[in-house]
Structure formats: C-alpha cells, structure tokens
C-alpha cells in the first residue's frame, strides 16, 4: 500500500498544527461556534445531536494493521470504545471532546492518516473497489489513481469552496463494487479500442450521479480518457462545476443538478472546451510520479500455491458452519491458493458497521498473521482481509467466530447498510439502526438467509440518503409524519454496473409494521422466483405489482 514520504508527513503535520490553533481559538472564545464551523468541517468534525463527531479518512478503504491499531486506540482513549465504519469507507467516532481532537489528529498523523476533506464543500475522500488488486476481473488497481486524486485534491486552492460536496469513486473491475454511477465523478478503468483486450488503458468518465433527494445515475461524458490526462480532465470538470454549479439553493447545488439542467451533451461540451486549454499543461502529473505511486501497489510476494487446497476442501466437508461461511463470505482471489475474506460487521442485533476497540485490535492481529498486515473497508460497511491463504481459512474462521466477525451474511438480507439515523444525526427524520437491528433479529436463521440468496437492504433516516436506500434492492427511507416515524419502501435499486434507482412501492409503514413489510417482500420473492433468480432478478422480471399486492392486501 501507499506510504507517506517526507512531503506527505510534513503536510499532515502542518494540518494538525493549523487545526490545533483553530481549536484553541474556539476554546478560548476568540472564535464563535459559527466562525469555527468552516474550520472544523474542513477537518471532518461535525456537531451532531449529542456531541461532536469526527470522521477520519480511510483513503480508498485500505488500512494497515498498524493503522487499525491506532483506530482502536483512539476509540478506547478518546471515545466510548467503538467506531463506526461508513459507506464512504471512512470511520466515524461519535463522542470525541473538542479539546482532544487536535491530539487525535496528531495520533492519526503518526500512522499516515488524517481527517482532511471528510466533510465540507470540497473534494471528499476518494473511494474505490474494496477488492482492488486482488479481484480477477480487474484491468488495473484503481487505488493507484485514487491515491493520485487524493494528493491532487488535498487542499486544492481552487476547489475547496465548491457549491457542494464532491465525491469521486474509482473501479478497475468489470463488476462495479464502488457504485461509480452514483458519484459526482465515477471513473471506470477501461481498455480503449476494439474490445480485443489489448488496447491502451484509460478511464470511462461518468459524471453527475448521486443519491440524496434527487437520485440520478451518472452520465458517461467521455468513454475513453488516456490516463496521463486524468488530472487535467478532473480539473476541467471541477472548474466548470465551480463556476456554474448552483449556489442559490443548497438542494440543487450538486453537480448532478448542473448536468441535468444544462443537459449531458452541453455539459460535456463545456468540459471538453475547458480541457482543451488544460490538456498536457502543468496540471498533469509529472513524469515518473505515476510509476512511483504504482510501485506501492505492486502485488505482494505471493507464495506459489495450487489452485485447490485439499485441507480447505476437506474442512468444508467436515464443518458445515465453516462451509457456509466460506460459501458466502469469501471472494475469489486472482492468485491461486488464496482467498479474499469478508468480515461481517452485521451480526444479529448490532448497529451495522460498528466495531469495538477490542475487535479492531483483534482484526489488526489477524491481518498480521493471515493477510500481509492489510485490511480493507467496504462501502457496504464491512471489513476485508485481502490476502489469506486458503490453507489458513479454517484457523482464521475459528478465531473470527468468538470475535463476532464471522456472521455468514455478506450480500444477504441481514448485510444491511444503514445511516446513523436519528440516534445520532441532527438531519435525520427517523431512526435507522433499530430497523436494521430488528431485521437482523427477524432473519436470524442462517439456512433461511442462505435460501434468500443475494438481497441488499439499505436504510436511510432522511432524504439525504446516506444509507443508500435509492440503490437498495429493498430501500427503506425514514420519514416524519406528524412527529411519528414512518418508513417508505422502494424496490429495484441497484448500485452496480446495472445501475437503477428504486421505485416507491406504496404508502409508508409505521415503525411497528416495517419489518413485517420487509418479510412480506422477501416471502413474495421466494414464492415467485425461478431457479437461480436473486430478489432483484425476480423483481425485474415480474415488476412491482405482485409485491404491491401482497404488501397492501391486508391494509
């Protein structure tokens, strides 16, 4: 993974010093809360319902074991012993004291981490496929480019006061695990040319996707961008947006609205015209820098192993629980004899994405012993050990079980994305976490979970859609009806390469009814499905009518 050099170290240390000064000015009363607000937001510090919340950047979701230990330490020393992994591959602490935040940032800087641009109207932490570098269907490791973008966007003097926040995601694989169609800019690494697989590598550039109150699927504005022009093209898009994006209405300020209002073709024209001026100019990455960064992401020294590991196959025969976990929580590795292991942060009855300090420390130890000291964070709020030998899987699993990290539910009905909701968030209309917890209790039978197959439930506590409900196969949106929490259900959303926005199925359900409604939807699918069909496949084949009929039949 990428390592800081002296420049990167100096930069984050200077940032800590700057924030220490700003926090001191706030604590002494020199700055009012209102004056302090832009400073804290630039450092990921929000004022939430009950306390400050600190969001720490985990660039493109890659962590070393050393960094994970530091995150555990911060949870223990400065917070209440846990952290929350987010849909943007970051971690949030919900209870830090303002006077401690400069020290927390200094501790993060020691392990090459920061909280820069995890909030505010700037280019946010860049996300990427959590299986970068280990997925077989990958053209190139997207983290190389995510790191280039991270550096270019860090305190960018022109783009730190954009109309609104700006999110960039990169994928290098055919299967889109980074939801690139739902970002302000999505970059898909592609090969140019005739489709014979030998063309030059570059990017498909997708702009104007997003969720929130106006969900939109991004538009491809350039099918192929040579990779040496990445930064000039990004600068062109950002400049057009910075100058023309709406600033009169907070809810219409994202780039998706600009693209929608001027039209994708006209927007593309403006970007291309601006790019003509910037292309090949000083903004481009200096020669040699791509290679320098690329070297950090070179494949590790894998052992040469047979594709099939007899001991692993034998264990699956002997141990049914292990076999089930292996079937659901492993992802095929491009290297023979290895596996990618998903650690579920969605055990029954717990808030999705939370990890305790003890779990984080244990995961760091397991990463050291089994996964070349590396960990990934997924946008679906789970963790990944990317480099595990198949021969070690059973031993690893045995250690994960008592830690509560071996729930065999990745991609299944209880692997729910949920925003913090009204339990923490000042914007929320309804609670999200308790709904998720109730669904995991309702579907607590592993055999049933497996039978239901892939099903993505995503829950947001308000229209800002932090819980990605628009792209849930089943989406749940919390709404406030005369002071009471209600939940509106959408069906058919999809964050992947077959992107779709879910459609509202009918009137909202009360908090007491919503879990029953989910169960009705699941049972309807089970009744209707044809062999091999996932929930989404069945929904696409039969449409909403049968689901609607069952849901509202008794109303």
């Amino acid at each position: 993974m990428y390592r800081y050099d002296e420049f990167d170290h100096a930069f984050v240390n200077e940032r800590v010093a700057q924030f220490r000064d700003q926090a001191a000015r706030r604590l002494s009363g020199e700055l009012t809360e209102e004056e302090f607000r832009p400073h804290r937001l630039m450092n990921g510090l929000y004022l939430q319902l009950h306390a400050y919340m600190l969001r720490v950047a985990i660039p493109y979701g890659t962590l070393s074991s050393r960094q994970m230990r530091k995150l555990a330490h911060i949870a223990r020393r400065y917070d209440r012993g846990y952290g929350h992994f987010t849909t943007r591959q970051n971690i949030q602490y919900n209870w830090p004291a303002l006077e401690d935040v400069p020290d927390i940032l200094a501790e993060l800087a020691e392990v090459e981490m920061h909280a820069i641009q995890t909030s505010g109207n700037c280019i946010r932490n860049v996300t990427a496929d959590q299986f970068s570098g280990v997925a077989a269907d990958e053209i190139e490791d997207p983290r190389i480019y995510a790191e280039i973008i991270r550096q270019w966007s860090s305190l960018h003097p022109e783009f730190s006061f954009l109309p609104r926040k700006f999110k960039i995601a990169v994928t290098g694989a055919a299967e889109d695990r980074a939801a690139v169609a739902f970002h302000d800019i999505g970059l898909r690494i592609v090969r140019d040319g005739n489709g014979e697989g030998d063309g030059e590598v570059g990017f498909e550039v997708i702009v104007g996707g997003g969720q929130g109150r106006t969900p939109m699927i991004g538009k491809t504005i350039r099918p192929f961008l040579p990779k040496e022009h990445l930064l000039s093209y990004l600068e062109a898009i950002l400049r057009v947006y910075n100058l023309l994006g709406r600033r009169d209405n907070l809810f219409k300020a994202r780039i998706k609205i600009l693209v929608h209002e001027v039209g994708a073709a006209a927007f593309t024209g403006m970007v291309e015209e601006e790019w003509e001026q910037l292309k090949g100019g000083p903004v481009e990455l200096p020669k040699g820098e791509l290679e320098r960064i690329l070297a950090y992401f070179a494949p590790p020294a894998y052992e040469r192993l047979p594709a099939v590991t007899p001991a692993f196959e034998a264990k699956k025969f002997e141990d049914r629980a292990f076999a089930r976990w292996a079937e659901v929580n492993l992802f095929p590795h491009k290297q023979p004899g290895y596996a990618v292991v998903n650690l579920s942060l969605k055990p029954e009855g717990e808030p999705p994405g939370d990890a305790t300090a003890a779990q984080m420390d244990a995961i760091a130890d397991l990463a050291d012993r089994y996964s070349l000291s590396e960990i990934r964070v997924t946008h679906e709020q789970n963790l990944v050990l990317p480099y595990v030998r198949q021969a070690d899987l059973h031993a690893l699993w045995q250690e994960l079980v008592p830690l509560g990290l071996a729930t065999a539910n990745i991609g299944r009905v209880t692997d729910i994305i949920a925003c913090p909701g009204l339990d923490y968030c000042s914007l929320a209309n309804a609670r999200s976490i308790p709904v998720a917890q109730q669904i995991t209790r309702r579907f607590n039978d592993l055999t049933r979970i497996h039978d239901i197959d892939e099903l993505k439930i995503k829950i947001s506590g308000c229209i800002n859609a932090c819980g990605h409900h628009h792209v849930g196969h089943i989406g749940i949106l919390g709404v406030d009806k005369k002071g009471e929490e209600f939940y509106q259900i959408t069906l058919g959303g999809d964050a992947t390469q077959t992107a779709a926005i879910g459609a509202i199925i009918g009137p909202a359900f009360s908090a007491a009814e919503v879990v029953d409604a989910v169960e009705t939807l699941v049972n309807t699918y089970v009744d209707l499905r044809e062999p091999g069909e996932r929930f989404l496949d069945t929904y696409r084949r039969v449409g909403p009518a049968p689901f609607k009929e069952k849901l509202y039949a008794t109303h």
Partner: protein
Amino acid sequence: MPLIKGGALSDDDWVSVGDDEPLPADRPVIVPLKRWQAERDALGGRNAAMGVRLESADKAEAIAADLGRLALVAIAFPTFRDGRGFSTARLLRERYGFKGELRAVGNVFRDQFLFMHRCGFDAYEVADAREAEAFAAALASFSVVYQRTGDGRVPATALRQLRRAAE
C-alpha cells in the same frame, strides 16, 4: 477597509465607484463590470489607472480582451462559501496573463489567504486590520502543496521527481 498588500497593511490609492457615481479626477478608480462595459472607451481615456470589479458570477472572459488596459481587477467573495472567485482568479492569471493587481474583496478571511494567494491574488481587503498580522503565518502554514498553480510553488509530486533526477 484595511488592505493587505505585499504581505502587510498598505495604503489604498484606489477608489471604488458605483454605477452612477461621478468619477474622481486623476485618481485610480475601480468600477463595476457593467459600467466598464458601457463606458469602456471613455474610461480607458482617463488620465489615471483603471480597475474593474467582478462579482462572483462574472466571468473572467468578460474582461479578457481588456486586461491590457486594466491595472487592477477586484473579485468579490460575497460569502466565504462562494468559491467562484478562485477559478476566476486562476483564469485571469494563468490563461489570460493578467499582470496587474488582483484584489480579493468582500468576505476575506485569514483561513483563505493561502488558497487565494495560490490562485493569483496579491491584495486582500479585510474587515479587520488584525488579519494582516496573521497573513504571513497563513501563507507559511503549509510548506507542501500538491497542485501546480500560477503561484510558482513547486508541488510535492514534482519535487520528488526533481530529487530522483538529482540522485
């Protein structure tokens, strides 16, 4: 308004004049873009330096052809959140080659000095003269930058390659 120029508080010779106000004789004046566009020839014939004020929605292109006749361009920041002026400034400096004074006016705070400087500003109207004391520290707060703009600072990405070449 106190003016920071050359890194310190500075006298201001310029007079800002509205759309309908009379022009003071023989003094450098800053006029709104609309007035400049309407009275360009008359204003250009004055015996004193001319400046134009751009509001945050005004485009650099609107004065690109006139820059040879302008000694100052003021760019307004109506709130700290409105960052259009950063792009406008870079375009004036880096694309249209403006060499005169580029002045940030409106809501200008110390925490934006570095960004503004990097985008080509060299003068700053501030609400409070004490901001001048913070100016030098603000510009020195980061020794490392990651972008190449018109300010001449060499980004880390290039320094690494220079160093590698020297080894």
